């Protein structure tokens, strides 16, 4: 019984009374123990830790603060049975290693994360970044089934599981996707997987952005095997994925030019990071050299083209807009908000946190959740709304 190992505490105060030195006695392997000890030490000394996997998202959407704490010691696939459509993997595992293993079994992560060099599984979850398939196969948190993590007390917590259907307890594992490590150090995560499509075809249809936005939304409302719908460089790009029979049957009704497979694969993989179309090409490793700041706007899918505002690409079947603009951040934020969406500062505007500011109610909830998971303010908040950061560190 798990509860007997934790002792008959009988009161909820046991947790807060444990303090920074009160790491959980649950079983940790040596690599996990190192992380737990580092968290406890940082909590005791009031230091801030900056969680780091492969550092592939360095500078992305904000500046990291604090001492780096590497998760690269957490490596390897814990459990993978293709017939379950579930994989459990340690957070420091290179994403490329996981992808290669899944490909070997004809499966894939549904959310198509950016495959930047060095990226880890933990970083893919923590950043919550998803590629073109997100509009059709779901986001990072949609694919998460469970997680083990260390909270800001250094205690190990396990939420969710390794099964598809599970409604026991709050879904605190899904909360880790896109939390940028603010709520804890991911140790291992379980994903629901998809079979790789038998057949993929990419079609290129030259047209203006507004026409493309209409077209992609109309197509998505019909039962076609769509797995990608993006506009950039003056053309709508559609990806059909599924059984050979299904894709073959769908192709004639759409028109356009077929893109050769290698070029198509490169195109969609590129979209996962940032679609082409912006000049000069953004170098992931050299954000400071960008001439114009880049923004990633999340908006309702049928929103008009924002070409006049600097939009150079549309993805997620209209739901994601890429803007290159030197308009003041407040203007970009207002634009996104006025459309019913939000804006993330992507590159070249690092003076401010990446995330869209929160309304006061959600801001207060963020502060309280930060305190639940990290009462001593151990984990870096560089990417969050400055107001939430301030309050979280001020609360300790």
């Amino acid at each position, binding site marked *: 019984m*798990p*509860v007997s190992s*934790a*002792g*008959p*505490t*009988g009161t*909820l105060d*046991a947790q807060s009374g444990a303090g920074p030195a009160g790491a959980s006695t*649950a079983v940790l392997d040596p690599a996990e123990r190192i992380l737990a000890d580092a968290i406890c030490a940082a909590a005791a000394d009031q230091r801030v830790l900056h969680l780091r996997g492969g550092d592939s998202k360095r500078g992305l959407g904000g500046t990291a603060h604090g001492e780096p704490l590497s998760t690269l010691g957490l490596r390897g696939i814990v459990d993978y049975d293709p*017939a379950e*459509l579930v994989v459990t993997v340690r957070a420091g595992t290179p994403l490329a290693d996981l992808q290669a293993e899944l490909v070997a079994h004809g499966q894939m992560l549904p959310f198509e994360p950016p495959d930047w060099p060095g990226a880890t599984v933990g970083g893919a979850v923590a950043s919550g970044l998803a590629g073109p398939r997100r509009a059709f196969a779901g*986001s990072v*948190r*949609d694919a998460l089934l469970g997680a083990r993590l260390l909270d800001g007390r250094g205690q190990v917590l*396990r939420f969710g*599981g*390794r*099964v*598809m*259907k*599970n*409604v*026991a*307890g709050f*879904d605190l594992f*899904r*909360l880790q*996707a896109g939390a940028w490590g*603010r709520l804890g150090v991911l140790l291992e995560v379980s994903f629901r997987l998809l*079979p*790789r499509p*038998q057949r993929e075809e990419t079609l290129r249809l030259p047209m203006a952005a507004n026409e493309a936005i*209409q077209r992609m939304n109309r197509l*998505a*409302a019909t*039962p*076609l*095997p769509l797995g990608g719908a993006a506009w950039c460089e003056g053309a709508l790009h559609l990806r059909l994925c599924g*059984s050979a029979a*299904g894709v073959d*049957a769908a192709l004639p009704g759409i028109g356009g030019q077929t893109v050769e497979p290698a070029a198509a694969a490169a195109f969609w993989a590129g979209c996962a990071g940032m679609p082409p179309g912006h000049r000069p090409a953004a170098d992931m490793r050299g954000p400071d050299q960008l001439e114009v700041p880049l923004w990633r706007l999340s*908006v*309702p*899918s049928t929103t008009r083209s924002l070409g006049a505002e600097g939009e150079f690409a549309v993805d*997620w079947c209209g739901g*994601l807009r890429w803007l290159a603009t030197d308009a003041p951040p407040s203007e970009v934020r207002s634009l996104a908000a006025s459309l*019913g*969406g*939000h804006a*993330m500062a992507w590159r070249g505007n690092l003076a401010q946190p990446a*995330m869209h500011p*929160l*309304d006061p*109610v*959600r801001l207060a*909830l963020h502060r309280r959740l930060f305190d*639940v*998971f990290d009462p001593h303010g151990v984990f870096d908040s560089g990417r969050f*709304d400055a107001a939430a950061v301030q309050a979280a560190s001020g609360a300790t």
Partner: protein
Amino acid sequence: MSQLAASQATSRILSALAAALPADALLTEPEQLAPYECDGLSMYRQPPLAVALPYTAEQVQAVLRICHAHHTPVIPRGAGTGLAGGVLPRADAVLLSLARLKRIVRIDPLARVAVVEPGVRNAAISEASAAHGLYYAPDPSSQIACSIGGNVAENSGGVHCLKYGLTVHNVLGIKGFLADGTPLSIGGEAPDDSGLDLLALMMGSEGLLVVVTEVTVRLLPRPRVAQVVMAAFATVEAAGDAVAGIIGEGIIPAGLEMMDALATRAVEDFVHAGYPLDAGAILLAESDGTAEEVADEIARIEAVCRRHGAVSLAVSQSEVERLKLWAGRKAAFPAVGRITPDYYCMDGTIPKKHLSAVLRRIAELSERHGLACANVFHAGDGNLHPLIFFDANQPGDVERAEAFGLDILRACVEAGGVITGEHGVGVEKLDAMCVQFAAPELATFHAVKAAFDPAGLLNPGKAVPTLHRCAEMGAMHMHGGKLLHPELPRF
């Protein structure tokens, strides 16, 4: 508090509510309260202090503010079809029914979204979207009656969730109120809210964190064609291998269901769906999509089933045949109800590869507890519904069924699974939560609850057991019971 003071406090809150609500939106008479004293798990009954039936979000907010000011617990309720006692009232609490907020605010066929109030029935969303060739995918078995607000609270699934996901995968945003009446808006039509993913946290939170007054859902294009394969196997093991084979083939069936021999016989006697009576297990695999996709997928599913030794195989050739093959599976619960005075439905999820081992364990336990058990299984996603036979009129039977059920849930957790796949915790599985989670996790759940509801007034005592309860749980006590709403399909 003295009796007099308590009665004065009660009359103060009732008059405050009466002043804030239309005359027909507050029930206080015992005969009015009776219909609200339980949900689908009818063995737990308790009339509330009062029932509020607001018509608008503003009235919902008023009820919350008044109750907060009077430090009175509030229990939000949808259609009351839940199976775990999640909306069981308390004598000191106001039951807040969202049933009258049932407007479909708008449907946008191009953006493929519907904005609805929480009292809208699950099936009504698909009905309203049908003219556009769209539908709302999650289809819990009670979908003709259950409400979208309740679906949000329970993160409901359905027969098709392997392919189309649970509520969490199909809700884009919510509006509602915190326990103190503070308005809250999370998500919307733009993907991925900024900041922490609070929307995901709301799904399945069993009414402990927020009261929802508006839900934005994603609509999907209705598949053009659906066909089902019925395959019979000599043993459960062979059927399980076929399930692994189908997934291994790269197929995600729209539905993938299994029944063991006892369930199959009960069903066949009841609905005559055409299932072979000598089979050890029956598998139903549905494919949907375009005609070309379905033809291809059905052929591959058939081939896999043959390869794994299917003793008989049938493929629906018409919508009538498809519905007939499904009718048996959908009638499994009432069919079992015909051959036993009472049954107790369990709801564990396990990794599929352990199905045979868990079913063998259940068979051993069945012998040890001296009670029969039929098994129906959402085979695609590992969600197992053992139906324990008992007779509540036989002394000791209820206790034996409870002990048997507990042992089954333990077996699920030991196999790497979980204690509830889709029915929720409510009050029914509070003790079982102690099996699945350790003290630090339960403490974190309580802290998250307090972050949203510091006064602890929203559906208190549900979903998460106190550490004290877990510590004291020497003898775990699981409760069964007859289901209310016998007219609703349950599968």
